[in-house]
């Protein structure tokens, strides 16, 4: 067994190793272009004519009132709901269209409080084919430990999901979304059920992520203060894009005041 100072040393070592896993930093030469995205319930549009253009290394926040279609847009990008229009991921360095790898941080999990599912089970289930009900593979366990260490969550690996706090669960989910490193990280209202301190840690982590990795971030958020502080650009959505630009531009616009008062 590790003593507490040994444990600290081990964790530090893990984090150092995890740092080596990081890929090259954002270059701004990867772009994701969504053109004329529309989702319809029968003939009624939920969202329509949505055009979004984002580059790697940027955090784009989607804001809007409840029912504006923010989550629907996320589901359309994931391919969970059928949509019109196109989503294209282009590497401008090589001028090639590539397959978009998406990481997604869900709003909540469908896991009962007392379900016997550990962080390892969830993580390994998502990223590997090693059947988690049968045995625990040591190398996979260590790999997951490394990935969790990036988000200061390595001590949670054997905990049951129901025993995690909101902030802890969020770090675990973020870690899963970033394994393997995606081109686009989607975060759907990630701040529910987390206290203020946890939220700021979360935003800081995402901020560090997009500095360190070659990825773009789309964040659906209600917290306008944090959006103002951390987002590179903001999209105001109400069935379609009402306004987009820097946080200041959007939040000082007439469209913004019409919706948020």
């Amino acid at each position, binding site marked *: 067994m590790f003593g507490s100072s040994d444990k600290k040393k081990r964790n530090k070592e893990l984090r150092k190793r995890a740092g080596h896993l990081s890929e090259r930093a954002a270059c701004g030469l990867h772009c994701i272009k969504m053109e004329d995205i529309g989702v319809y319930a029968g003939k009624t549009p939920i969202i329509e004519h949505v055009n979004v253009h984002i580059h790697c290394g940027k955090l784009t926040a989607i804001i809007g009132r409840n029912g504006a279609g923010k989550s629907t847009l*996320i589901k359309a990008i994931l391919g969970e709901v059928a949509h019109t229009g196109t989503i294209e991921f282009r590497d401008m360095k090589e001028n090639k269209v590539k397959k978009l790898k998406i990481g997604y941080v869900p709003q909540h999990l469908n896991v009962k409080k007392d379900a*016997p599912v550990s962080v390892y089970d969830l993580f390994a*289930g998502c990223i590997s084919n090693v*059947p988690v009900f*049968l045995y625990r593979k040591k190398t996979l366990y260590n790999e997951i430990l490394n990935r969790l260490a990036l988000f200061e969550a390595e001590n949670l690996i054997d905990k049951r999901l129901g025993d995690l706090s909101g902030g802890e669960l969020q770090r675990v989910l973020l870690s899963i979304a970033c394994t393997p490193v995606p081109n686009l990280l989607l975060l759907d209202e990630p701040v529910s059920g987390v206290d203020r301190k946890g939220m700021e840690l979360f935003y800081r982590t995402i901020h560090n992520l997009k500095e360190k990795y070659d990825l773009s971030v789309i964040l659906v958020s209600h917290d306008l203060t944090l959006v103002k502080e951390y987002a590179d650009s903001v999209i105001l959505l109400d069935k379609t894009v009402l306004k987009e630009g820097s946080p200041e531009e959007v939040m000082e616009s007439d469209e913004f005041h019409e919706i948020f008062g």
Partner: protein
Amino acid sequence: MEFLSYGFMRNALIAICIITPLFGILGTMIVNNRMAFFSDALGHSALTGMAIGVLLGVAGTDVPMLLFALVFALVLNHMKRKSSASTDTIISVFSSLGTAVGLVILSRGGNFSKYSALLVGDILSITAKEILCLLGVLVLTLVFWLVCFNKLHTCSVNKSLAMSKGLPVRLIEDLFAVLIAVIVMLSIKWVGILIINALLILPTAAATNIAANMREYHLFSVILSVSSGLIGLVLAYYLNAAVGPTIVIVAAVFFAATFFARPLFRT
């Protein structure tokens, strides 16, 4: 061990050694996925399946029952995705309709008693051929579990998360529904409509009380399921009672015991 001198008891023993681990494994995802109501509805739909078989005048009712259950499971999955009504309501409607249609057809002419064995099940009447069939299903389930369990688990935890990892969510959900349908239909004659769900859910629910992760969950679930089955069979023999319900009582005792032992496993 005198009961083993009877051929039908030996067959029942072998059948239980196949059905109970099968239910122990399947139960884990039914409980985690909150599908208890779904498997219950499937059990009830067996009545309609059998009724259709009788109407068509087919010799064995197995095939129509199986086909009907497959359609039933897939339609139910489809409705769940399309409709905005709550899943429980939809399943409830399907379940009641399945039961009612079956009862109406089977009770025509007043000879429902002929089919009442379907309600309680009779494992003592199982034949060698039927045991082989169950063994086939056990192997199929194990293969499905080895290949698909991780994917199935990710889908059950969060569909969007599964989509982002590139999983064919619909296909996996449908395959699982089909697997449940096949297992429920092939074992319903031996276990009975009234108690099949108890056997699927109770051992797993007991395992939930004391397991800390997926491996323990499966291990405890299978152990408790098999133990309930074996103890239940022997008890039923000496009490001269129906086997299925006796097994359910043993499983319920296990549930109570693990429930009170819970604090010992949660540190």
